[in-house]
């Protein structure tokens, strides 16, 4: 198959053509952001003193943490009410930021269903959508939200195509869209080819570049949340590869955000190697990017009771803090049931803030186990990166597409039809995620052996052969309540 996409910066001509023909016409509210220079001016004004990139920079330099709760309601009033409540009932303002998410209809560009959800929510007097439909509400409403908060806003915009959402968010002074492609197809897509997904995301990244070049530093999230059940190496590869794609479009700050598997050593190794290799590969290609890291709480099934959820909130936050990750993203005790309430989100902020008080600057001490884990992840990711660059003749975008097509870029579970799914992962005796089956991944032999040995420890500890049922049990281990 011929790959047409290239990892190449969109020219202004290309960018504005796409903008006019594809992006702004998606929905009527596209009109509100037509004048880009004006949008940038307003964004500069509105994000004064609460710019996400600059707040991350400040926290990183001080060695402290930015707490990042998540919120999003069907109506603007509900959303503002939630932000104000949490900020009034916790210490978020001192060092925090918001991740606002849209509803899933918006993420699928189904603005009609989103509109129906808005009407329905008004009728029922409850938020019937699982997020704030940014595109339906448009830029003026987004600016209202920006004015209502004391901290920077990030926007979790999209499944396949977050371009219009990002246009609206950035124009409202929110300082973060998303840069992602493989992450997105694995996490939320079904049919879109990777090539097309990369093309859509080049636009969003370029938009961030343009804002930054015009005096509004934008720090997009470069996440690997993926399916919630992926190996540390795959997660890391996704971030590093996508950091190059974003950097090419002129993105100068990136928030490397990794979904935690909840093994302290492996999660820390994963986050640190991701930062190291993103830096290294970007330098190699001549990109000048400043990276920040953040840990995202476990993305699998959560337990349906407050105390068990609080244990997860605390353990996830502690892993991020011990890692030294600047961002500590927060879920809350509603996770198993519904979209977060403001009350529960405020509780999560309080828990995490007090953990920071208690832990101070405590970090995981340098140790052999961590160095080994880092070395293993690094070897796996380097093998994947080099194979991509080779397959793509030095072009990362091409290489990623070829890797997925051939199946040597692969993960276990995803709704996305182009993923081969020939790998299987399982937890080892200490809960770290290991390959039970490496499929066609170009795993260096020593890494393969390492994973095998770690799983053998579990088999020995449990006194049983490893089998597929254990994979299934692993998927639900964190949601089960001890009886």
């Amino acid at each position, binding site marked *: 198959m011929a790959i047409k996409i290239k990892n190449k910066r969109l020219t202004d001509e290309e960018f504005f053509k796409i903008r006019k023909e594809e992006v702004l016409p998606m929905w009527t509210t596209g009109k509100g952001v037509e004048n880009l220079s004006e949008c940038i001016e307003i964004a500069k004004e509105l994000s004064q003193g609460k710019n996400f990139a600059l707040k991350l920079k400040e926290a990183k330099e001080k060695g402290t943490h930015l707490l990042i709760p998540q919120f999003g309601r069907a109506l603007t009033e509900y959303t503002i009410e939630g932000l104000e409540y949490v900020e009034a009932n916790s210490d978020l303002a001192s060092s925090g930021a918001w991740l606002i998410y849209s509803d899933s209809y918006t993420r699928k560009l189904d603005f009609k*269903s989103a509109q129906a959800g808005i009407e329905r929510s008004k009728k029922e007097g*409850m938020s019937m959508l699982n997020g704030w439909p940014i595109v339906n509400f448009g830029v003026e409403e987004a600016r209202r939200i920006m004015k209502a908060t004391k901290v920077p806003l990030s926007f979790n915009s999209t499944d396949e195509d977050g371009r219009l959402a990002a246009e609206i968010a950035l124009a409202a002074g929110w300082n973060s869209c998303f840069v992602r492609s493989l992450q997105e197809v694995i996490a939320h*897509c079904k049919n879109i080819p990777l090539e097309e997904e990369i093309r859509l995301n080049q636009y969003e990244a370029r938009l961030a570049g343009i804002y930054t070049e015009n005096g509004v530093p934008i720090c997009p999230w470069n996440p690997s949340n993926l399916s919630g059940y992926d190996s540390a190496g795959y997660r890391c590869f996704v971030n590093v590869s996508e950091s190059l794609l974003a950097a090419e479009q002129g993105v100068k700050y990136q928030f490397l955000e990794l979904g935690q598997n909840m093994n302290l050593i492996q999660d820390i190794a994963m986050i640190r190697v991701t930062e190291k290799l993103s830096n290294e590969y970007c330098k190699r290609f001549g990109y000048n990017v400043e990276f920040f890291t953040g840990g995202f709480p476990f993305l699998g099934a959560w337990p349906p009771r407050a105390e068990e959820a609080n244990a997860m909130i605390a353990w996830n936050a502690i892993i991020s803090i011990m890692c030294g990750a600047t961002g500590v993203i927060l879920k809350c005790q509603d996770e198993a*049931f519904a979209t977060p309430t403001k009350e529960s989100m405020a509780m999560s902020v309080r828990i995490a803030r007090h953990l920071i008080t208690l832990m101070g600057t405590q970090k995981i001490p340098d140790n052999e186990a961590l160095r080994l884990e880092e070395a293993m992840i690094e070897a796996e990711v380097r093998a994947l990166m080099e194979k991509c660059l080779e397959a793509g003749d030095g072009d990362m975008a091409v290489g990623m597409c070829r890797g997925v097509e051939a199946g040597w870029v692969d993960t276990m579970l995803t709704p996305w039809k182009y993923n081969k799914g020939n790998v299987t992962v399982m937890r080892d005796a200490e809960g770290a995620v290991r390959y039970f089956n490496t499929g066609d991944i170009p795993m260096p032999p020593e890494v393969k052996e390492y994973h095998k040995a770690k799983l053998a420890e579990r088999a020995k500890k449990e006194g049983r052969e490893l089998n597929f049922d254990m994979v299934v049990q692993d998927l639900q281990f964190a949601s089960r309540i001890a009886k």
Partner: protein
Amino acid sequence: MEKRKVNKSVVIGTIGADAHMIGGWVLQKTFKDAGFTVAFLGAVVPQQEFINAAIEINADAILVSSMYGMGLLDCEGFRGKCIEAGLKDIILYVGGTVAAPLELDKNWPEIERRFREMGFNRVFRVSTTAAEVAKTLKEDLGIA
């Protein structure tokens, strides 16, 4: 009217714009292990696709997973489409995080009422295990 013969077959998928597939994935594994024929449609599945698959495998039941809080919206009109397609009596289950507002989730009888009104036979909480769902379906099919 004669009663349809039980075929031990089910359609499983996650409805609407919802990409969460793990719940459905665990479910399909459990039902296969229990000897069912399973059409597993993955995630982001439209209503019509569930129904087409049900016709194709002559399913006893459609098991709808919804994890992102908008199941109540996504399931509207599902029974009507089944009836149109000649699946008047097919068993419809739905389960997961089916409503975005916590106040609604905490008022579970209201959730049940709404889904019953929409023609669903049962609605399961997110904490229900796949094994429990399989057991219930067998009972409903009279093959427990």
